[in-house]
C-alpha cells in the first residue's frame, strides 16, 4: 500500500512535467490547428540549455532554469517564423512535414554538439525528504511547485490580460481575429514563445529528475499529445487534466506490469481514448471530426 502511495505521488510529479509540455502543445494547436511535432524536441533543447548553463557555465540552478526558458522561447519563435509561417496557407501536410523535419534537425544538432550519451545533472548535496511513507526529492518538490505556479500564471495570462484575450480570439478563428484588427502574426509568435518556454521548463525538470538524451523529445511529444487528446484537442485546461491522468496511470501501472512497458502505457491510453471518446473529456465533438467545414 505504501508503495502504491509512493507510485501515486510519482505519477503526480510526472504529470506535472507532462502538463507543462501539453499546455504549449494545446495552445499551438488552438492557434494554428496543427500538431507541432517539434514541441517535444524543443523541450529537449530546453533541457540541454539548462544542463549546459548549470554544469558548464556554473550558473546557479534557478537562473539557469529561467535562462533556458527564455532562450527556448526564442528558438520556438524562430522555428515558427522559418518553418511554419511560409506554409500557413499551404495544405496541412506541408507544415506537418516541416514540423517533423524540425524535430529531426533539433535532435541531430543536439546529438552533434552534446553527443548521443545519456547525461545527468548530478545535483549533489540534495537528499530526499520523507513525508509519512513517501520519499520525495527536492527536484520533485520543485516540479510540483513550478508546474502549479506556471499553470496559475498561464490561467491569469489567458483570462485576465489583453494578450490572453487576443490569443483566445486567434484560437476561435484566425481570419476573424485578423478582421477585428489583431496582429495575428504577433499573437502566434507569442503563443510559440509561451509554449516553448513551458516546454523548456518541462524538459529541464524531466532532465533534473531523471536524465537527458537527445531522443527524449519523441517520448515527450507522444505523451503530451496523449494528454491533449485525453483532455480534448484545443482545450488547454483539459490538457492539464489529461497530463496528470497519464502521469498517474503510467506510474501506478508499474504496480501491475513490468516497468519496461511504462512508456507504452501513455500510448495505450491514447488508443483507448480514441476508441471510447475521441473528442476527449472536455472537448467539443465537432473539433475532432473530419468534416470540419
Amino acid at each position: 500500500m505504501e508503495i502504491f502511495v509512493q507510485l501515486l505521488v510519482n505519477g503526480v510529479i510526472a504529470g506535472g512535467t507532462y502538463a507543462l509540455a501539453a499546455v504549449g502543445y494545446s495552445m499551438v494547436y488552438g492557434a494554428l490547428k496543427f500538431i507541432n511535432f517539434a514541441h517535444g524536441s524543443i523541450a529537449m533543447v530546453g533541457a540541454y540549455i539548462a544542463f549546459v548553463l548549470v554544469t558548464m557555465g556554473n550558473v546557479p540552478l534557478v537562473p539557469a532554469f529561467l535562462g533556458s526558458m527564455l532562450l527556448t522561447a526564442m528558438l520556438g519563435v524562430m522555428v515558427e517564423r522559418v518553418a511554419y509561417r511560409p506554409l500557413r496557407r499551404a495544405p496541412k501536410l506541408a507544415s506537418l512535414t516541416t514540423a517533423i523535419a524540425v524535430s529531426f534537425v533539433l535532435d541531430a544538432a543536439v546529438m552533434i554538439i552534446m553527443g548521443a550519451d545519456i547525461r545527468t545533472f548530478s545535483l549533489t548535496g540534495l537528499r530526499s525528504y520523507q513525508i509519512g511513507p513517501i520519499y520525495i526529492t527536492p527536484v520533485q518538490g520543485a516540479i510540483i511547485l513550478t508546474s502549479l505556479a506556471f499553470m496559475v500564471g498561464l490561467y491569469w495570462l489567458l483570462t485576465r490580460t489583453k494578450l490572453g484575450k487576443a490569443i483566445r480570439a486567434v484560437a476561435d478563428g484566425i481570419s476573424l481575429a485578423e478582421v477585428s484588427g489583431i496582429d495575428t502574426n504577433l499573437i502566434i509568435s507569442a503563443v510559440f514563445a509561451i509554449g516553448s518556454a513551458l516546454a523548456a521548463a518541462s524538459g529541464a525538470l524531466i532532465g533534473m529528475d531523471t536524465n537527458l538524451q537527445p531522443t527524449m523529445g519523441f517520448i515527450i511529444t507522444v505523451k503530451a499529445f496523449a494528454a491533449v487528446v485525453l483532455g480534448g484537442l484545443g482545450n488547454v485546461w483539459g490538457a492539464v487534466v489529461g497530463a496528470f491522468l497519464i502521469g498517474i496511470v503510467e506510474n501506478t501501472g508499474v504496480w501491475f506490469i513490468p516497468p519496461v512497458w511504462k512508456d507504452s502505457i501513455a500510448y495505450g491510453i491514447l488508443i483507448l481514448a480514441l476508441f471510447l471518446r475521441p473528442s476527449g473529456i472536455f472537448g467539443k465533438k465537432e473539433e475532432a471530426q473530419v468534416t470540419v467545414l
Partner: protein
Amino acid sequence: MKAPDATLLKVEGLTKDFGGLRAVDRCSFEVPRGSIFGLIGPNGSGKTTVFNLVTGFLEPTEGRVFFNGHDITGLRPHQIARYGIARTFQLVRTFNRITVMENLLLGVHHQPGENLLWGVLRTPHVHRQERRAIDRARELLAIVGLEHAANEYCGNLSYAEQKMVELTRALMSDPQLVMLDEPTSGINPTLVNRILDYIRHLREEQGKTFLVVEHDMRVIMNLCDRIAVLDYGQKIAEGTPAEICANAAVIDAYLGTCAS
C-alpha cells in the same frame, strides 16, 4: 408503390446549438418537388448551418429532415448524398491539384472502378462505365462553356470557372435536389445571368429541385418560386418573392429593399 410526394425535402423543427449559442432555432420548411426554393437572411442568420445540417455535415441538436419521405436526420454526408442530394459550398471547394475532368468524374456515384480491386484489374465494365462518365462530363462542360478546360488543373481556373466546375460536378450524379450555397457570389454580372439561366434550364428541362442560399436579393427574387427568411436562426417569414417583398419584418431584418 405510392405516388411521389409533392414535397421533396421537409425540414421539421431543426435546431442547432454551438456551445451556448443557438445557431438554428426550430426551423421548419418544405421544398416542393421541381421548385427553386430560396433561403435568405443577414450574415450569421444560420443559412449555411441549415445547409450543413440537411447535408449531414453537422448533427442537429433537435428536429428532423425528410427527403422523399425518408428520414435522413443524422446520416453521414455520403449517405445523404446517395439519396440524391448534391451540394456546393459557400467558398468554392474544387479539387485544385487534379484536372477539371477528374473533378467531374469524382461526382459520379457508384462507380465500379472506385472499388480497389476492380480499379486495379480494370475490367471491361470499369472501362465502359468510365467511358460513359467521360462522355457525360464532356456534355455538361460544353453546356457551361468549359470544354476547352477539361484537362486543365482546376487550380489554374478563375474563381468563376471553379464555381462552374463545382456546380457541374454536383450535377454529375444526376441528383434530385441541388443545394447551392451562394452560387453567384464573387462572379461578374454577365456570368451571374448565365448561371441563373442554367439553373432555370435544369429545372424546366430535367425537373430538378433547387435549394439556394443567396445574399444578392435581386438574384433570389428573380430566381425563386418560394423563399424562407432566417434571422438569428429563426424563420421569420416564408412566401413567394412578392409576399416576401411586402413583408415588413423582412425589410426590417434585412435592412434592404427588394428590386422589382
